[in-house]
């Protein structure tokens, strides 16, 4: 177990190095850099940029050096926990990202929880009562959830909550708390606002998960070991939870790896529509304005979460499934 963990952790190092190089390369791909974008914006506004100042900034930001030097500088900083400097905010990246990261985590965690709490009972019901009226009704709602883009749902919800409650629902908290540090009052305000993005973001993945769980469970319910359990005299409820549901869980555990990165960049468009103070909109803006260290750091945090998420789901799978733990050769 320990040897396996150590090996997996060691493999993560070259993976992350490779990812960081690719991330940096891709950010550099569009022509120009932060300053040239800024100069263009100034020119477009009819102002004349100060050539000396630009030159000075270029030197200060290190944009005059070769890309390789820039990469080494950035990657070297990452190693000691320095995420670099955001040109646009004129602040260290870690300070820019800080609170948004907390909000993103909170939102994503709540949305995931929402998804599981809603999807599991419905999925189980749909599978066990296949082709019943309830199954059809829930399937119908599920398909609507799947087919509607979440930003559209966000707009609809915003419109109606404005009409019915008369309150703007954008953001995660009351605008009054915008510049304040996290406090109890702010947290309460967050609770009042957060349910809309939770429902909007959670809805599409809920529909997806209902379909997936229903399909998995329908497969498992036909297996001979279910009949074996029934032939032992198990009640239908215990039978369901003990055997087929347990078997149907595996894909969801394997999914943990892809849930974590969503914490960072997931639902960027919904974030823009609802003007949420989360990472998604900021990442989008950073990529548009060539704020390369900010964008790069976002992507690196995401990469770390992917790799860690995979590790967690592998370990969880092994703990739950003896076939993986004990290395079953055949599954006849």
């Amino acid at each position: 177990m320990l040897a396996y963990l150590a090996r997996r952790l060691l493999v993560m190092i070259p993976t992350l190095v490779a990812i960081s190089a690719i991330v940096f390369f891709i950010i550099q791909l569009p022509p120009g850099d932060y300053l040239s974008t800024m100069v263009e914006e100034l020119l477009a506004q009819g102002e004349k940029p100060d050539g000396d100042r630009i030159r000075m900034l270029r030197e200060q930001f290190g944009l005059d050096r070769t890309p390789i030097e820039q990469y080494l500088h950035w990657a070297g900083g990452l190693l000691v926990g320095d995420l670099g400097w955001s040109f646009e905010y004129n602040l260290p990246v870690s300070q820019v990202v800080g609170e948004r990261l907390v909000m993103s985590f909170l939102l994503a965690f709540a949305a995931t929880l929402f998804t599981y709490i809603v999807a599991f009972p419905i999925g189980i019901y749909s599978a066990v009562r296949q082709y019943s009226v309830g199954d059809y009704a829930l399937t119908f709602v599920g398909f609507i959830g799947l087919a509607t883009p979440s930003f559209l749902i966000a707009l609809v919800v915003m419109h109606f909550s404005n009409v019915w409650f008369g309150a703007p629902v954008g953001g995660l908290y009351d605008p009054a708390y915008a510049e304040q540090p996290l406090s109890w009052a702010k947290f309460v305000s967050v609770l009042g606002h957060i349910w809309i993005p939770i429902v909007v973001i959670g809805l599409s993945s809920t529909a997806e998960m209902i379909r997936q769980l229903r399909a998995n469970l329908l497969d498992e319910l036909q297996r001979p070991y279910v009949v074996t359990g029934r032939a032992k005299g198990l009640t239908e409820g215990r039978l369901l939870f003990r055997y087929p549901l347990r078997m149907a869980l595996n894909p969801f555990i394997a999914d943990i790896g892809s849930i974590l990165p969503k914490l960072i960049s997931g639902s960027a468009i919904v974030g823009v529509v609802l003007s949420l103070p989360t990472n998604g909109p900021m990442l989008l803006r950073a990529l548009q304005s060539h704020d390369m260290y900010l964008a790069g750091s976002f992507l690196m945090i995401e990469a770390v979460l992917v790799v860690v998420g995979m590790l967690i789901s592998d370990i969880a799978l092994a703990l739950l499934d003896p076939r993986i733990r004990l290395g079953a050769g055949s599954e006849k």
Partner: protein
Amino acid sequence: MPDGDLLRVEDVAIEFRVHDTLVRAVDGVSFRVRPGSTVAIVGESGSGKSVISQSILGILPKTARIAQGRLLFADPRAGETQVDIAQLDPRGEAMRRLRAAGISIVFQEPMTSLSPLHTVGDQVGEALALHETLTPAERTERVEDMLARVGFPDPVRAMRTYPFELSGGLRQRAVIAMALICRPALVIADEPTTALDVTIQAQILKLLQDLQQSLGMAVLLITHDLGVVANMAEEVVVMYRGRVMESGTRDDLLRRPQHPYLKALLRAVPRFDMKPDERLTPLREIKPETGHLLAEQAPWTPEADAAGPLLAVEGLTRSFVTRKGGFFAAKTENRVLAVDDVGFELQRGECLGLVGESGCGKTTVSKMILRALAPDSGKVLFNDRGTIRDVHAMGPEDLFAFRRRIQFIFQDPYASLNPRMTVYDLIAEPLVIHSIGDEAYRREMVAELMKLVGLDARWTNRYPHSFSGGQRQRIGIARALALKPDLLLCDEPVSALDVSIQAQILNLLKDLKQQLGLTYLFVSHNLAVVDYIADRIAVMCRGRLVEIAPRAQLFKRPVHPYTRALLAAVPDPDPDRRLDLGALMEGRASKPEAWPMPFRLDGTAPAGLVDLGDGHRVRARQGASIDQILGRSAA
């Protein structure tokens, strides 16, 4: 109960709802089971025998219901008061209490009927926890005791193992332990040995008999195998298309069958004591007709035959690397010798049977002959009308041409035909691949091939799903013959088919061999089938050829202990030739290190095939004399 019956099935009919119509799967079936006795229900697939067993436990599929009749069970735990299972709610408390404790079931597939995520101890003990109030320690004790009874060498360890860590035989023992743990009065065994090798099957049958005697339960055996019936049952119920054809005691039924169906069934089973020219009589015989296209085969010249045997396999060896060890443990590479120094020759026009249990390497050998798999060492030599070619040394063009000479018939007639192609496309595909003939030629050839395997040539536009298993297998045979090959590799071609269909296909293969001058390599685990079709038989065990001999010689004078065990384990439908269950080697027969001298292979001495004359060769340790091998002086 007035007459002391444990279970009485009275005039039961079961209906399935299929696309808004009702289909009667079982109609007017009646039989009884006395306490402690064994009753067998025999029938081919679709006869409704499994449906009956499911109805007794109340585990029918959702689409099925009991339309009429009574299923009376006199539970000894409840003072033998009768319950009508047909009236019970299948999800109700009363039905649940009956399961496992009153009536339990052993399923066919031990792997899929056990959960892979729960330990053996957990699954076996579950029924005990449901039906009896015991402390955990008492429960563990009962489970361990039962695991020991069904033959687990180390019950304490078995408690913690998972089903996939066990061999097929041990898995089925675990399933039996699960069924018996609550000491039910009736055990339903639904094809309990069909998924197992013959030697394992014999062990499991013996185990069931022993346990039945010591625990005093009744067994309702569901099977298609008349050999198993002859060895196990006291009373027999023969079913066909949902109805009982005939029932009575075993001796009456098997010795003096009355109903035409049972008579026909008995004539369709290959037996060991058949006369050399005796033919099986299937329910429907196929008369193969050859047309002019198939007959247009360039004849072999004497010079071509003189060049050598059609196929010679020399010292084929192949090992596989399995990565064993756990997910968390470092992986250790494990080399398994799947095929070890296998060599034999196949003369043109003969049929060589290759026999062995699952995992003995027989399929690996046939794949290497086809060059679907490369050997680690060894040669496959093929006589291409006078020129001897090494199959594994051919270039791409030669190989492509060579593909026309050898064709393959698969085991599973369902998986081996593409469901999206019509029969015409399926049979014509080899011709298209090898660019043989024009459209008109192909049409005529396909029509001729259809007639050859006894199918109506007008059916060429149908898709495989509209054909039965036996008909699909014939389509597979027609496809294999489209290129007019010299050699056919038949990999268990009849093991997925019912007995009556099996006889039909075997006869067809025999006739085709005669009419088209074909040569067969017939791979099978079923000795009786091989005995019927093969001229010579090669027996494989653990990747090695242990004995090869002409058919009659092998059955009259088997020399190798493994061959003997294999022969002893085949159940015969003749009630006078019961299995000597005591004489089985308790599973040691397939362990080369446990064979008696001079056959033992434990790595201390090299071994090879020793010629006993008349083409009879047997694997023994080097230096062993023929007397030793035949056991003349050792005794």
